[in-house]
């Protein structure tokens, strides 16, 4: 691979992001990160959370780079990091796989003259609104208008599908998938910020809240937050008095309305970035008609070119959880082809023997950092260092220009040895970024790394109290005193070592479990699949084709053959799990295979227990053979059933059991599946009349194209509301459906030969399994993942992973991606034969434990449990598994007997800090 690295004009190894350059840079430019709502300097950090936190110079605006004059930053930089001579460099890399994650470009609505975005200041895009809502944005989270008054808006409208689902004014026929949900979120947050006086209205075509827990959010937005929803497409925005906006639209009832808003947010869609389209051409990978990366449902992260994988919105518009799933899946796919190279480039760290300090009196070394002028410009650093020498147990204190520089690190390590220090306090920046670095210094000096404490006198002091040097100096002394008091009580902590059994257990042999097992096996790990049924495939066996038209049974057969022939995989059919013991790295499961008991040892477990279709209890289901569920229709189509062939009319009813008060979630797949089935019927018999009765059509992403195709093929879509559901009757053997047409607003009667009910997807609901693995289940029966956005394929409990319908309803491509993602996450453990856990964990004192069980029931990571009643020591008392403990301290604060201690943050340490903060002055 040939890469081009653009110059940053900053030596990253030197820059300490002190910000002196930015302060003096004379050139102000529009800040693209804040979508032009703010200005930044020509030398900049893109945003406060940027990693690495290093400056860069914008060559398009820098006076020095443009005209050869200025160089103010170079003169000022205290570490000499500015380098105007940096040139573009080319980098050659030899790699075995490439993962493309170039993202998307927000749609630019300037070209829509009817919305006048370019002319009217108070018409903003959703991206701009995001910046306005952000606490780190240009208004620090205060919503103000862009017009000169900068007033607080009292009435805001969101316009959906701007640049999506639109072939008329732009060429984006697809749905952007995420805009309905982000508009809801923006409206809810706006109301939370501005209070009840703010009126919010969302103008939409179909509300697409098809993600996990999204429908509940929609319900709450409407019912709890009072957000108004108008199902209409606004055709014009005109200027009104006081920079307000007049919106014209037609209400559902047909009434023409003109309404004034203070602000209008255009919910812009996601587009492929033209630069990425060029790249795709250059590297020769196939794109869809809409310039998204073309993939196959059965290899959802593979591009058309072997070895190149894709994740995120370049594959199609998608939200964060799906992007995260894809990214893990892409990592797994790359791992599958690179497994032979695993560990071939790893280096072994040199181990320095640790000094035993037990019984020693604390001897604290305090290093106070100037951070150039960052701290020293405000805080009197020498005075703080001087003050530190007066504190109890402090053996040595000094100031440094830059504590994090390599030579200071070396000096610190030498001083630790020379002065025989056994505790170190660094007063500098934040432990969030620098604690690991200083801990390494301790390790190199032979001290346990937990004998360290930081005082944050930069981010929490000098930077935020610039105009009060005296108070800032006092505060710095306070913080140093608190840190020393805590450090004195620090003990060397041991990190437990855990051996990981290199075997995986996949529970469920449906398509996502199969994908997980296949990926694990291809990466070289022994894998067991446990399947309750007598064959693999799960629900996929009932499905005719994917939304992309791929035949499911053929692909499933190929997948099954691949699994059966892989010697790393053992398949256990007709098998249930009777018991699970152990924890991450060392599970022992008892299985019952065809009636015989077996025991499996494994290091990780993937729960892929799937789901099934609801058996409908309405619309006369079960009373007539012509009434069936979506999967039953698929089965008939797979079998070329004559009933389907001879039907003249077919009707589909959507949301059967979904989005109802007792099951308030969207089953995600039914709209696309129905549209696909309707098209298939039309394809088989073009003269057939096909009706789809729906509430919102949720063909997200490029699935929208199927919806368009169906309408073009003559499928008739009629919308109904929850309060006005279709009536199904049998009149003298004639199947009749009556409902009110949403456009004509008149009753319609359809006589049909087939009625397909798009019944909701229910999770397998295995309470026993949830208890075995100590993992939570939500009120709908789906498992609760570690993090809804960032940890969709794993549990908070270490070593247990999740994929497929057990997580949430999803189509085949997403199930396979999540299967691979779960495998990828599992391999982060399996790839290491031993794991060292943190030393900052909780520990019980069995003598004080009253066995109340609060810690056992409270811990989100399932770390505490009871010592078995027949144990020789401390029977029945609680104990905490240090391997599972994340050191949050929830159990410590909740323990009524005071029996639990959190190492590193123990009660005496926190009290010492509180006592050391001198509040009486």
């Amino acid at each position, binding site marked *: 691979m040939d890469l081009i690295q653009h110059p940053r004009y900053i030596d990253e190894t030197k820059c300490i992001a002190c910000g002196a350059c930015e302060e003096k840079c004379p050139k102000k430019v529009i800040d693209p990160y804040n979508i032009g709502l703010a200005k930044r300097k020509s030398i900049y950090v893109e945003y406060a959370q940027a990693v690495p936190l290093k400056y860069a110079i914008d060559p398009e605006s820098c006076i020095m780079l443009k005209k050869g004059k200025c160089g103010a930053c170079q003169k000022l930089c205290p570490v000499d990091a500015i380098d105007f001579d940096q040139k573009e460099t080319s980098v050659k890399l030899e790699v075995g796989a490439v993962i493309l994650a170039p993202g998307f470009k927000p749609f630019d609505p300037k070209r829509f003259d009817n919305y006048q975005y370019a002319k009217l200041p108070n018409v903003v895009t959703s991206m701009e609104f995001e910046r306005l809502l952000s606490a780190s944005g240009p208004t620090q989270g205060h919503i103000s208008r862009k017009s000169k008054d900068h007033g607080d808006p009292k009435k805001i409208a969101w316009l959906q599908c701007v640049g999506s689902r639109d072939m008329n004014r732009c060429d984006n026929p697809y749905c952007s998938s995420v805009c309905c949900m982000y508009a809801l979120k923006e409206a809810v947050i706006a109301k939370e910020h501005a209070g009840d006086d703010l009126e919010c209205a969302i103008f939409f075509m179909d509300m697409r809240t098809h993600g996990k827990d999204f429908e509940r959010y929609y319900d709450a937005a409407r019912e709890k937050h009072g957000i108004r929803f108008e199902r209409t497409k606004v055709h014009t925005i005109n200027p009104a008095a006081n920079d307000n906006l007049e919106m014209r639209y037609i209400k559902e009832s047909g009434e023409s309305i003109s309404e004034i808003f203070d602000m209008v947010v255009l919910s812009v869609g996601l587009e492929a970035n033209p630069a990425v389209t060029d790249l795709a051409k250059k590297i020769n990978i196939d794109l869809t008609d809409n310039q998204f990366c073309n993939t196959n449902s059965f290899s959802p992260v593979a591009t058309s070119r072997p070895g190149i994988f894709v994740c995120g919105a370049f594959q199609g518009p998608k939200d964060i959880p799906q992007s995260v799933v894809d990214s893990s899946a892409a990592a797994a796919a790359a791992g599958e082809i690179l497994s032979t190279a695993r560990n071939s480039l790893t280096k072994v760290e040199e181990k320095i023997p640790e000094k035993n300090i037990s019984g020693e009196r604390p001897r604290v070394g305090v290093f106070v950092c100037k951070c150039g002028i960052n701290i020293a410009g405000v805080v009197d650093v020498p005075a703080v260092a001087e003050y530190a020498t007066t504190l109890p147990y402090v053996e040595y204190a000094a100031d440094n220009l830059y504590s994090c520089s390599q030579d200071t690190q070396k000096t610190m390590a030498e001083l630790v040895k020379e002065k025989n220090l056994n505790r170190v306090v660094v007063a500098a920046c*934040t432990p969030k970024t620098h604690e690991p670095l200083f801990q390494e210094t301790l390790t190199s000096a032979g001290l346990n790394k937990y004998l360290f404490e930081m005082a944050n006198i*930069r981010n929490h002091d000098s*930077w935020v109290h610039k105009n009060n040097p005296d108070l800032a100096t006092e505060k710095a002394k306070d913080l140093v005193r608190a840190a020393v008091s805590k450090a004195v009580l620090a003990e060397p902590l041991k990190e437990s070592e855990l051996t990981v059994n290199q075997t995986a257990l996949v529970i469920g042999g449906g398509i996502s479990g199969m994908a997980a097992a296949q990926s694990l096996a291809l990466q070289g790990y022994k894998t067991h699949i446990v399947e309750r049924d007598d064959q693999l495939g799960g629900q996929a066996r009932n499905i005719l084709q994917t939304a992309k038209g791929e035949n499911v049974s053929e692909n499933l057969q190929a997948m099954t053959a691949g699994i059966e022939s892989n010697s790393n995989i053992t398949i256990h059919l007709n098998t249930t799990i009777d018991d699970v013991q152990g924890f991450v790295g060392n599970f022992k499961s008892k299985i019952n295979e065809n009636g015989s008991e077996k025991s499996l040892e494994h290091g990780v477990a993937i729960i892929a227990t799937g789901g099934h279709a609801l058996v409908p209890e309405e619309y006369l289901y079960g009373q007539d053979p012509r009434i069936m569920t979506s999967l039953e229709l698929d089965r008939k189509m797979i079998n070329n059933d004559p009933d389907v062939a001879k039907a003249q009319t077919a009707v589909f009813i959507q949301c059967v059991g979904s989005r109802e008060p007792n099951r308030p979630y969207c089953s995600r797949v039914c709209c696309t599946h129905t549209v696909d089935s309707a098209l298939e019927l039309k394809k088989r018999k073009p003269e057939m009349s096909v009706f789809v009765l729906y509430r919102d059509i949720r063909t997200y992403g490029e699935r929208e194209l199927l919806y368009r195709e169906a309408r073009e093929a003559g499928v008739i879509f009629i919308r109904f509301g929850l309060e006005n559901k279709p009536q199904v009757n049998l009149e003298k053997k004639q199947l009749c459906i009556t409902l009110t047409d949403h456009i004509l607003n008149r009753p319609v009667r359809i006589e049909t030969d087939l009625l397909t009910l798009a019944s909701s997807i229910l999770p397998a609901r295995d309470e026993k399994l949830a208890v075995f693995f100590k993992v939570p289940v939500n009120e709908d029966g789906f498992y609760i993942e570690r993090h809804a956005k960032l940890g969709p394929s794993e549990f908070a409990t270490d070593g247990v992973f999740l994929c497929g319908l057990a997580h949430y309803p999803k189509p085949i491509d997403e199930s396979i991606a999540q299967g691979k993602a779960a495998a990828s996450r599992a391999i982060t453990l399996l790839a290491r034969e031993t794991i060292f856990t943190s030393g900052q964990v909780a520990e019980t004192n069995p003598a004080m434990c009253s066995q109340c069980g609060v810690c056992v029931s409270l811990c989100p990571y399932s770390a505490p449990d009871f010592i078995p009643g027949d144990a020789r020591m401390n029977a029945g008392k609680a104990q905490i598994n240090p391997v599972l403990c994340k050191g*949050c301290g929830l159990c410590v604060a909740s323990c009524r007997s005071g029996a639990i201690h959190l190492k590193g*943050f123990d009660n005496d340490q926190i009290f010492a800090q509180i006592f050391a903060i001198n509040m009486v002055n």
Partner: protein
Amino acid sequence: MTDWEPKIVSFLCNWCSYGAADLAGVSRMQYPANIRVVRIPCTGRMSPKFALAALREGADAVWVSG
């Protein structure tokens, strides 16, 4: 009383509010110097005893954020 400023002890979760306080610094937001931060690993670690101790030691207010 007009010059009176409360002395505040805050207990901030390492993973969110402590990081936010760091970012306030990166963004050079200015605020009064009468606040002292105690970093805790999670607000789950917070015990009522800590709040009482801070108040007993002279704090006018205790702020727990996480």
